[in-house]
């Protein structure tokens, strides 16, 4: 994968302005015994939108705080635009952060909050220049004319945009966002995601976003870093991560998957034949060149629910199907655009299938108790190492 080989490149970051804007070199952070970051290496290109995604406590915020300068790594180096910044305090780093709680100054009005960073510059820009830039950035976040408002007079979504404006007005090299949308309701969060993404494309500043919402990470980012217990387990584009998860952990974290346990019968670099616990043999695709497989190895096969095809007649299934088996419909869950079915078969055990709404319109929905044929193509079945 080109993304991960870039991330692990051993050379020192270049300083010619075309190198990575941000780099971690084997960065670790321990709080006593707790490893919040363990040997993280990472490079971020200028203008990239990168997300850290992972469950609570996996070290996302810690990674962000090491970039901002609020935490010092216990090992390794952090580079900003080619310069090692380990010993540079937060107030001299050319990055800005949007805090999860927004951290707006309650004793200052909106305009003074936004102007705060500019007022710390020396030489201090002129009054006129500050007013101009504050006005421009407030327009950018669609808060023109709100400058005189007090912070507590603003709604949650407006406060979030003030926090964004307060960071953006400084034109940082990297903008850090720590779950900036977590406090918003679902609808507003969707709108803000689109807005943030458009904004980032327009101004071209590097964004680093921390989130535990996979949908948010996948929909907004150029690349996503999946984290687990202080480590990066996989880094890649959203489609990469979804289509080619490197491990069961990633497959389970990014989207939903059915996991089937089995052992390798034969393995070639592109595909493998796997014998499932039920004795059924299936053909499966395999990814991850690093994963060496030999006959007899225990593996997990992941199949996305939307890749599972359900048919009333067996011969309606496409000819190139890897496996097709009689299954009982146990449950039908209506999700709006999709319908999720929970099924059980002798070959696959209990598994889930996701049917789009259209196919339901054409055909009558399957009912619990019905027996259907379920199948999936070989390239939909991914062989994963069992972590």
């Amino acid at each position, binding site marked *: 994968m080109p993304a991960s080989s870039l991330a692990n490149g051993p050379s020192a970051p270049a300083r010619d302005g075309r190198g990575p804007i941000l780099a971690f070199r084997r960065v670790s952070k321990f709080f006593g015994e707790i490893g919040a970051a363990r040997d993280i290496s990472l490079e971020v290109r200028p203008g990239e939108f990168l997300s850290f995604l992972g469950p609570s406590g996996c070290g996302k915020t810690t990674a962000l705080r090491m970039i901002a300068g609020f935490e010092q790594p216990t090992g390794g180096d952090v580079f900003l635009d080619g310069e090692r910044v380990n010993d540079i305090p937060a*107030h001299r780093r050319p990055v800005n952060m949007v805090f999860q709680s927004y951290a707006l100054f309650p004793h200052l009005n909106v305009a003074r909050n936004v102007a705060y960073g500019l007022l710390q510059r020396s030489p201090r820009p002129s009054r006129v220049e500050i007013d101009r830039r504050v006005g421009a950035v407030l327009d950018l976040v669609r808060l023109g004319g709100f400058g005189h408002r007090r912070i507590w007079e603003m709604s949650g979504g407006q406060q979030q945009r003030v926090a964004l404006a307060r960071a953006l007005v400084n034109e940082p090299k990297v903008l850090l966002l720590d779950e900036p949308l977590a406090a918003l309701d679902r609808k507003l969060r969707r709108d803000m995601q689109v807005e943030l993404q458009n904004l980032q494309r327009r101004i071209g500043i590097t964004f680093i976003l921390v989130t535990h919402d996979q949908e948010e990470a996948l929909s907004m980012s150029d690349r996503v870093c999946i984290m687990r217990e202080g480590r990066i387990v996989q880094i890649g584009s959203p489609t990469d991560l979804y289509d080619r998860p490197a491990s069961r952990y990633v497959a389970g974290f990014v989207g939903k998957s059915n996991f089937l346990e089995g052992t390798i019968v034969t393995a070639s670099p592109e595909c493998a034949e796997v014998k499932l616990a039920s004795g059924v043999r299936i053909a499966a695709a395999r990814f991850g060149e690093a994963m060496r497989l030999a006959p007899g190895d225990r593996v997990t096969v992941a199949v996305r629910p939307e890749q599972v095809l359900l048919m009333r007649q067996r011969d309606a299934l496409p000819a190139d199907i890897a496996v097709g088996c009689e299954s009982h419909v146990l449950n039908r869950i209506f999700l709006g655009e999709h319908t999720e079915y929970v099924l059980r078969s002798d070959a696959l055990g209990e598994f889930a299938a996701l049917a789009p709404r259209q196919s339901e319109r054409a055909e009558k929905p399957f009912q619990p108790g019905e027996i259907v044929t379920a199948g999936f193509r070989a390239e939909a079945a991914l062989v994963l190492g069992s972590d």
Partner: protein
Amino acid sequence: MRWYVVAIYVFLYLPIALIVVFSFNAGRYAMDWQGFSTEWYFKAFANPFAMKALRTSLVVALWTAVLATMLGTLAALGLERMQGWPRRAFDALIYVAIMVPGVVIGIATLIAFVTVFDAVNPFLAGLFGDAAPQLAMGLPTIIGAHVLFNLAVVILIVRARFAGLDRSLIEASEDLYATPFGTFRQVVLPMIFPAILASFLLSFTFSFEDFIIAFFVSGPDSTLPIYIFSSIRRGITPEVNAIGTVVLAASLSLLVIAQFLLRDRNARRPAPDKAA
């Protein structure tokens, strides 16, 4: 309310109410109502001894408030950064300073001052001969003793406010390029200012109305409470009641203002509408 609760409140506040009522007595004797009059207020404000005591009290209270607030604020900010046993030791000492009875502080500071003066005065005499300054009890010793116990009050109030300060505001300020001093001046100070002002008013009040400690270390200068104490030995007059009422009104107003400043400020604001 139960009758005994009423009884307790009557027992506590009736004497105070009587003082206020009888300060408006037209008669000569404190408890012999002759009709309404404000003449004792004019008498009191025309009394040179009372006015001198009032001036002394105001000077003492002002200096005490200024010094205790300044030192206490700095101490509070410093203590908030301390960790481990030194911090626990200081915490304990602060509470001790508040719980020790005034009499003990009075006696202890008196002994301390006398001991120091006895040691220093001969030394000064040897240095400067007959023109040597003599250290003695007076305004500075009252102020010193008052600062001592008010310091603890200021530290507790300011530190509570500082501890309640959202850390991310400080980080946000640093993130926006403010130097540590810039952050202190532009974020920490404005945020804890109500607590600083409140502790200034409280230490002013506590110093102004203190009798016990001042009684021990005042020397020849008498503060207003000491003046009241010495004048009631000649009988309780409506004039004393008038002075007491003025002191009461002033103290209460300052306490109310301080309480207002220490209120949870967010309670005054409508909660931000998160869902919006």
